[in-house]
């Protein structure tokens, strides 16, 4: 926690930047003895809390970052907003406008030093608004560590196999609400799967609905499907082999974000992640959660 102390010049500095967030540079992080890692709240298999303990792939990666820097890990739990642009604003460069400290109104807002699970996509990083200005110019997206894609799992007692999506003109399928699978299944292919699409608060609830026999399949991110299958065990629920025709983005890379002026910190994380990807420890870490590890496209060609 960064709080203003009532000490001469420091107070003056606090007054200047009161109510704002300030990026911590690499040296600040090392000197403070901790690093704040931004992870999403309640989002298995990446990050979630259970019985007071933090779990997940991104939490473990946060620990690896803290260890590499020789500092303590502090988790910055993020509530997802409507888009990633909002999350970057709330958690990396500006802080959230509701982050107020009643007793200390001049306190800096809490932001993450490093935010995980940020897409690594040139088109997104350099996205421009209607006036031609960069949308996310105050953050740097770097260090791709994972490639994510969509996956379908189905109940073998309801369906023999899922080779094409045509099945879901006739069989119910569960998706997370307001996700791309929800958009896709209710509006693609002339909406022919629309009537069979059932919406749930998240992938876990959709999967639970499949276990209760209310839907025959679930579509979600592959890591989520892998983890749910891993947690469930047995052979009843299986990965499908279908493709997703007419879907714009089938797979995408995931990396980190740091504030624009703390690239040094980003480079330190990049060096660590690069080593972990090359020596196989990244894949081992994902395997602990039963999740298939796919290297980001940067590593596909050669390595």
């Amino acid at each position: 926690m960064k709080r203003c102390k009532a000490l001469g010049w420091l107070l003056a500095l606090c007054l200047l930047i009161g109510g704002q967030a300030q990026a911590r540079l690499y040296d600040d992080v090392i000197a403070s003895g901790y690093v704040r890692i931004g992870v999403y709240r309640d989002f298995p298999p990446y990050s979630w809390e259970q019985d007071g303990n933090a779990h997940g792939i991104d939490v473990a990666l946060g620990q690896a970052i803290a260890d590499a820097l020789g500092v303590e890990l502090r988790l910055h739990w993020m509530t997802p907003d409507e888009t990633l642009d909002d999350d970057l604003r709330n958690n990396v460069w500006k802080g959230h406008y509701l982050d107020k400290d009643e007793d200390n109104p001049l306190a800096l807002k809490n932001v993450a030093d490093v935010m995980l699970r940020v897409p690594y996509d040139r088109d997104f990083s350099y996205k421009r608004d209607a006036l031609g200005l960069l949308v996310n110019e105050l953050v740097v997206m770097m260090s791709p560590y994972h490639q994510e894609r969509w996956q379908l799992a189905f109940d073998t007692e309801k369906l023999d196999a899922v080779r094409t999506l045509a099945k879901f003109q006739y069989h119910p399928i569960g998706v997370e609400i307001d996700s791309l699978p929800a958009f896709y299944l209710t509006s693609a292919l002339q909406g022919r799967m629309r009537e069979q699409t059932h919406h749930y608060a998240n992938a876990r609830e959709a999967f639970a609905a499949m276990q209760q026999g209310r839907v025959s399949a679930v579509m979600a991110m592959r890591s989520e499907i892998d983890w749910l299958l891993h947690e469930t065990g047995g052979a009843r629920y299986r990965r499908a082999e279908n493709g997703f025709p007419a879907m714009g983005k089938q797979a995408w890379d995931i990396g980190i974000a740091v504030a624009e002026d703390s690239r040094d910190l980003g480079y330190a994380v990049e060096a660590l992640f690069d080593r972990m990807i090359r020596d196989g420890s990244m894949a081992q870490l994902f395997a602990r959660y039963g999740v298939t590890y796919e290297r980001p496209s940067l590593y596909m060609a050669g390595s």
Partner: protein
Amino acid sequence: MKRIGLSTGFAVTALVAAMSTASVAQAGVTDEDILNDQMTTDDVVSNGLGPRGQRFSPLTRVNTDTVKELRPVWSFSFGGEKQRGQESQPMVKDGVMYVTASYSRVFAIDVKTGEELWEYNARLPDGIMPCCDVINRGVALYDDLVIFGTLDAKLVALNKDTGKTVWKKTVADYQEGYSLTAAPMIVKGKVITGVSGGEFGVVGKVEAYDAKTGDLVWTRPTVEGHMGYVYKDGKPVENGISGGQPGQTWPGDLWKTGGAATWLGGYYDPDTDSILIGTGNPAPWNSHMRPGDNLFSSSRLAIDPDDGSIKWHFQSTPHDGWDYDGVNELIAFDYEDNGKTVKAAATADRNGFFYVLNRENGDFIRGFPFVDKITWAKGLDDNGRPIYDDSMRPGNPADAKKGETVVAAPSFLGGKNWMPMAYSQETGYFYVPSNEWEMNIWNEPVNYKKGAAYLGAGFTIRAINEDYIGVLRAIDPKNGKEVWRYTNYAPLWGGVLATAGGLVFTGNPEGYLMAFDAKSGEMLYKFNTGSGIVGSPITWEMDGEQYVSVVSGWGGAVPLWGGEVAKRVKHFNQGGSVWTFKLPASAEMASR
């Protein structure tokens, strides 16, 4: 009033009785007070100056002749670092003003001096995500209670003298995206509230709570297919599914999460004994996912205050694809037509059309554009249903890679947004705070949400005219004629007040409280309050003098969502205060 227990001894009873007599002027607010609010000029005990929300006062001391002499009496600061949009309407009862401020705060102020009597600060949890600034639109008064809704979707009743919590009820789960920002309303001893929550996944509802205890009385979902309940001895009893059954106007299971949030609250028409309330846009935003009318989204509902049954509905934008919420206020008023009194109700919709309905059955009487530019529809048919221009519906993101840009007018912030209009019983005109702006909408395949690829829609709002966006219009509901207009550089975002003194008051983001001649539209007075006005003015009488109050504090949805319009407003400074005005004694004398 204090309650006297049966077991209390005679002496105590007598003492309490004596105290009650002494404090008779401090009596709590009754249903009758609220029903008569429009005509009782010494207080303001309802949102909208009367249950119908006409925002018309019969006071005449401040009038077209004297208003130029209006002077500030005091200004009260909400203080703190919490200077966000102030969209509240103050209430005044027995010399005390009750007003809410950003971040779910309530203040009680001595109206004679402007001194604070008490302040209530809701303790908001971490992780709430209100969509559109941390605003609040005001309190309800009942008995000795001051009742308001918080950003974490709770109703809180405070003691009017101490500001201490008497009861607190959770209306909805903020973790599911719900919030409360509207002023609650009192109808027949019940607190009526809607819910806010633009996020995908919420289902709108209207609920009634016993005003004195906070016990839930009934709940009515505003999306077709959901069961309504009345509560008997704390137990829910089924009271019919909204719209009869699910799946009539929604595909698949989308009715389960259909949106239609009732985020602006409503008003009450005592004549027909109906709550008149509007509903927000359907979810999800992409209309191609949900063919059908998607009832009761973007609609006006008449609801029975006794059990929450829907008496009738009128849908202004069926199958909405532009985010044209239907929450704007539906104001009951009567007019003469060939010697017959028509029991009507009027609303100026986000979608740019002004509707006059029969408030006894919801029938469409007439409708007409109240903004200069409407592109999404070619007009209204005989039943008031829009005649769509299909080329103006935003594209299906599943079909398109980037998609074409659609230019639609009005913008999704609406020909008119939340800011309440006024109806003058003197002129018979509605005074409508409106905005001339349009939006570009395009598919945005390069977007992400929570670490996953996502099909978003990009949009930006633009002014239609170089020199103004805001237009205050005097509109004749009998023929759709615009009688006069005042144009404003920045968008208008504050409520309007009409008086029998021949005046129309409103504020602008530039900071001015303004008064216009109700007949000609001539600006007769303006005063800069130091920050933008996005609240609703009130007027009342005390010790033979007429007062006007308004909150000042720039914010709300425009600076958050305004697109190119944000350029026009970015230099406006934030604030947070109440200003109170009256005529100096000399001007008072001159007017007699």
